[in-house]
């Protein structure tokens, strides 16, 4: 019906753009791929070298103290991690943990400053907000394509794709947390002659901290939800076991690996939630 408008070549424009970015910033992408890739591998390998018993004990002790000296989470962690070890998925677990750790770190390190900027400027907010919406609603698979173009296959594009998918909550919550600080406290800070920086660090960030930590928690959970998808472009870890089980229709193996991801998710989620509480 609308034949008189020729089909717009959007897809090929995007292709061109990705190609251009890939070529132009090769000088940046290549060293990142090499150095960051090396860092990821070595982190995961060192983690795998620690005897599982020690890791399990450390996690249990951490869980015990972070949850206010209650046994629940500690016991769950011990049983859950022993299960993963028993299923011979320990080194995959370490790779997955590395992927989640670095993509969340990256998301937080970049997301919090962006959130602060957004809270300070209505213009910045009106520009960044739709970008965040876009990042979160675009199907996560789509990020794999430029990720591969920029960084090849392996852990690095996996971290990159997880980072894009997982960053929005921490940005949003930082913005929200700072904007929610009551006018009176902002006025008190101004009235006593605080500079913008003093106000941010002495009043706004401490007040916003519980909200920001809720954002960090969501960010970590989202990056964990990316591990299976990231394994499609060669990221190692539990996700790869799920994926290969899917390709070979092995329901049992898929279930075990998936279950291991769930255990990791629960431990990380409860730990970060408690971190939030104990600091309020």
């Amino acid at each position, binding site marked *: 019906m609308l034949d008189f408008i020729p089909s717009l070549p959007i897809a090929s424009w995007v292709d061109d753009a990705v190609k251009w970015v890939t070529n132009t910033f090769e000088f940046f992408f290549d060293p990142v791929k090499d150095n960051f890739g090396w860092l990821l591998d070595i982190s995961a390998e060192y983690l795998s070298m620690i005897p599982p018993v020690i890791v399990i004990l450390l996690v249990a002790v951490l869980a015990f103290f972070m949850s206010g000296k209650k046994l629940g989470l500690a016991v769950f962690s011990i049983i859950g991690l022993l299960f993963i070890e028993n299923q011979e998925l320990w080194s995959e677990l370490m790779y997955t943990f590395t992927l989640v750790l670095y993509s969340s770190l990256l998301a937080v390190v970049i997301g919090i400053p962006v959130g602060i900027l957004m809270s300070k400027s209505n213009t910045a907010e009106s520009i960044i907000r739709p970008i965040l919406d876009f990042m979160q609603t675009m199907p996560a698979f789509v990020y794999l394509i430029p990720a591969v173009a920029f960084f090849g296959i392996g852990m690095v594009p996996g971290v990159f794709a997880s980072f894009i998918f997982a960053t929005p909550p921490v940005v949003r919550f930082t913005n929200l947390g700072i904007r929610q600080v009551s006018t*009176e406290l902002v006025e*008190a800070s101004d009235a*006593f*002659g605080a500079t913008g920086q003093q106000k941010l660090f002495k009043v706004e960030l401490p007040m916003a901290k519980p909200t920001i930590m809720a954002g960090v928690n969501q960010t970590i959970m989202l990056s964990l939800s990316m591990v299976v998808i990231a394994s499609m472009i060669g990221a190692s870890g539990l996700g790869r076991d799920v994926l290969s089980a899917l390709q070979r229709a092995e329901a049992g193996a898929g279930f075990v690996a998936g279950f291991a991801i769930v255990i990791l998710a629960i431990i990380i989620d409860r730990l970060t939630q408690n971190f939030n509480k104990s600091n309020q």
Partner: protein
Amino acid sequence: MPVIEVDNLSKIFGKRSKEALSLLDEGLSKDEILKKTGCTVGVNRAKFQVEAGEVFVIMGLSGSGKSTLVRLLNRLINPTAGDVYVHDDNLSTMNKEELRRVRREKMSMVFQKFGLFPFRTVLENTVFGMEVQGMDKEEREKKATEALELVGLGSFIHQYPSQLSGGMQQRVGLARALANDPEILLMDEAFSALDPLIRKDMQDELMDLQEKMQKTIIFITHDLDEALRIGDRIALMKDGSIVQIGTPEEILMNPANDYVEKFVEDVDRSKVLTAENIMLRPETVDFDKHGPRVALERMREQGLSSIYVIDRTRQLKGYVNANDVLEARNNQITSLKEIIRDDMPTVEKETPIQEIFDVIHDSPVPVAVTEEGKLRGIIIKGTLIAALANVNGNGVEDNA
């Protein structure tokens, strides 16, 4: 020489503020300007001077522009037009750095809802102003501790604000403002969030402090009683304009216009003063918990010949007198329930004081002031007579 001088100061909220400003000069009212331009007149060409050591009260109904005006004085809000001089320095033309220096050194502010940082202890709150100036830790903590002792909070410095009552929190707010010994105090409805009794304590305490410190205080309130109690001069605001400035006497005697008159009529004291305004804090015992021994001990401590009895929920149950209690104790009776009397005069919080006079004169015990059956305060003959004497005092001058 005035400490603060305000000249032709206006604030208009909204996008078309310049246009609204010229309409204001043409004499249009706040409502008309809102209709025409969508802008709200916050403050309309205010002009006044405040002298050193003066308590200058700005009073008006809610929405009359008091908070806006006080925030123009330290430029938390930027003026649309006009000037604020602190001594000879014009705040309106200062850059950020100069303005910060004035805020740090010359004036500090006390807030209606206290404005305390919940994640900081009382001491950490109190040092805030000095901390942002970069004063060293030892010195600022010493000064803050002194300020906290001044307001009677010396033993609470390591508590968090949420652990304190409202009155105590506002003392912290006051200590924080005083810690750096600023010349000017800005207090925006500083006592409005407090219970009437505590509020009166705070007013008295502020006056005591002021006697010692001689600060220049700008005090905002919507309560004429409060204004009359603490103000050296009072400015009355309506719709963003100051409609009268004068001493409490001048305002009461010669209201400048109908608006002021209406305000002042409200203060025809015998009509308006209610039990709540003159009641004192009651001494009580709780008959669910306490027996004759506790009752005797409390009466002895306070030098009372009777004491009111309440239950766990503060419901007024009656009173006991010293003789009965003594006898009960000697007869090994452990519950107050057996000797409680209930022939005390009782009035509601809202009862005008004129009516209280009728019930108090032949009563053996103070009048109980209740709210929904709960004991809120007591009234003794002395305070009632003092309050009535005040009324008559005004009346005499009125006739003269």
